[in-house]
């Protein structure tokens, strides 16, 4: 497992030296500053809008990093042939793959941490400028419950990264991006599939949609942004159960990716 850590640290080092990654973070910070300006123009709804936009931008920028770096994790190594010098070193292919995965997860977590810190700073500054702002909203401006939503965003992005990595073990970056994004969209409408049987006449189609409900990742389960913004309770048990679901799914996807990668020819 030591090798996994070494590969992961190297992936993180690459991300740190990659200027594209910096620009995404800078852009996220700029966007959150913009949300503050929008909040200034919207009477009474300031914190709610900033929370909505802030959490959404954290989620979307994280998603962009997960997909666009995730799909290149293996492909770039193969395309640039750097894998030829790495795999003959004393490591198993699975260790290489896991190292790549955890390296990107580390990058994501640090990026989200930076964005979250910036987000809370913006909200804290707002409260300082307008001390009465909390009274207009059901939750305080720097409500710690938002961290539950961010924790679930992290698990969701870990799953997206695992799926992107899975596709990148056997397909091109374009196809991997398309399939990962497609699965992410389908996963957000997953809960609709469960009840689809009630509105279709064909029992076969009903069974098929139900099977798809169980197989496809249920990304909508990770989305509690609206609840925390509107100060609705998100039980800790729900967060724990959803994290357990996400981690189990991640483990299965990584096992699949490792099985494919273990027998792949690097021509």
């Amino acid at each position: 497992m030591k090798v996994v850590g070494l590969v992961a640290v190297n992936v993180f080092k690459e991300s740190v030296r990659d200027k594209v990654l910096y620009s995404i973070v800078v852009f996220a910070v700029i966007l959150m500053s913009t949300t503050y300006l929008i909040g200034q123009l919207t009477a009474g709804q300031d914190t709610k809008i900033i929370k909505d936009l802030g959490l959404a931008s954290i989620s979307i920028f994280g998603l962009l990093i997960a997909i666009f770096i995730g799909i290149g994790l293996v492909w770039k190594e193969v395309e640039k042939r750097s894998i030829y010098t790495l795999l003959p070193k004393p490591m198993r292919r699975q260790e290489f793959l896991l190292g790549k995965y955890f390296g990107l997860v580390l990058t994501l977590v640090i990026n989200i941490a930076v964005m979250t810190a910036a987000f809370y700073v913006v909200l804290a500054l707002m409260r300082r400028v307008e001390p009465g702002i909390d009274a207009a909203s059901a939750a305080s401006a720097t409500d710690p419950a938002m961290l539950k939503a961010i924790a679930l965003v992290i698990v969701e992005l870990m799953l997206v990264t695992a799926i992107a990595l899975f596709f990148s073990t056997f397909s091109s970056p374009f196809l991997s991006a398309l399939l990962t994004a497609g699965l992410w969209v389908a996963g957000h409408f997953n809960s609709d599939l469960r009840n689809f049987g009630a509105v279709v006449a064909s029992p076969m189609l009903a069974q098929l949609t139900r099977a798809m409900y169980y197989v496809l990742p249920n990304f909508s389960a990770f989305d509690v942004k609206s609840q925390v913004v509107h100060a609705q309770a998100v039980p800790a048990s729900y967060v724990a159960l959803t994290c357990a679901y996400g981690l189990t799914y991640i483990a299965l996807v990584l096992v699949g990716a490792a099985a494919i990668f273990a027998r792949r020819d690097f021509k």
Partner: protein
Amino acid sequence: MDAISTEALTKHYTVGFWRPRPYVAIDALTLQVHAGEVFGFLGPNGAGKTTTLKLLMQLIFPTSGRADILGKPVGDLDVKRRVGYLPENPYFYDYLTAEELLVYFASLFGYAPAERRARASRLLDEVGIGAERRLQLRKFSKGMLQRVGIAQALINEPEVVFLDEPMSGLDPIGRREIRELILRLRDRGCTVFFSSHVLSDAETLCSRVAIMAKGRLVTAGALADMLAFQVRGWELVVSGLTDAVLAAAKARGDVIDATTVGAARYALELPLDPPPEKTLAALIAQGASLVSLTPVRDTLEDFFVKQVSSAGGSRFRESA
């Protein structure tokens, strides 16, 4: 125990979308490389040299057959700890410096941080990378990357090192330095398996070679044996030879050609038959003196061209 052995190692690829056909990249390669020797793996472009090396490094998997390194199957972690590999036209993480790259690779072998740095520094010195070691690899020329590639292949002081076209991209000084490095590795007891299509390198360095063509092993053996059997004539240098004696020898067919190398001194090209001793005795009897007698052998290039030209057959197999 052989350092490397393959038994009927075969690799097929499927080519063609509408009518897929198996393409034979390597066909039943059986080869033994002895411990401590410098082994040249020769062949023209597309002969299957790099594919064989990738099979030995388990970057690709064989269709059938097996390959062992140091008595264990390729891909075994213990084997990986004891071998080094330089791929053809190596590419490394260009955001790292040469020093960082070597330290990273050393860490994968489990060395302590101080040992990683010491090994990286020593090897970069050995391959001639000076102050540039602190530059990102994206600023390196092809030749410098090749040197870094050789350094990373040696980071674990391997017992067997695989070098795919190690002289590629190097200038004449660099080639000489790498040749000397390979000989130093041999002297330390390291087995060196290197692929090349530059025959002069093989001639200088190898004790044994294998020649591949169209995915098949054409021949393998000691370089000295291969070339010894290919004596095609003799070069006799004599002095005190008169024009009349030379003309008579030519007329008898004892001498094919003669080149003047000084006053009454000639370099004579003799055929294999009659034996050179007989011609020499006749010339000495007529007043000539022996300066030297040397067998004229095929060069490795001559031998290589003959062997590769004779390799026939298609690399496509009919589907079953």
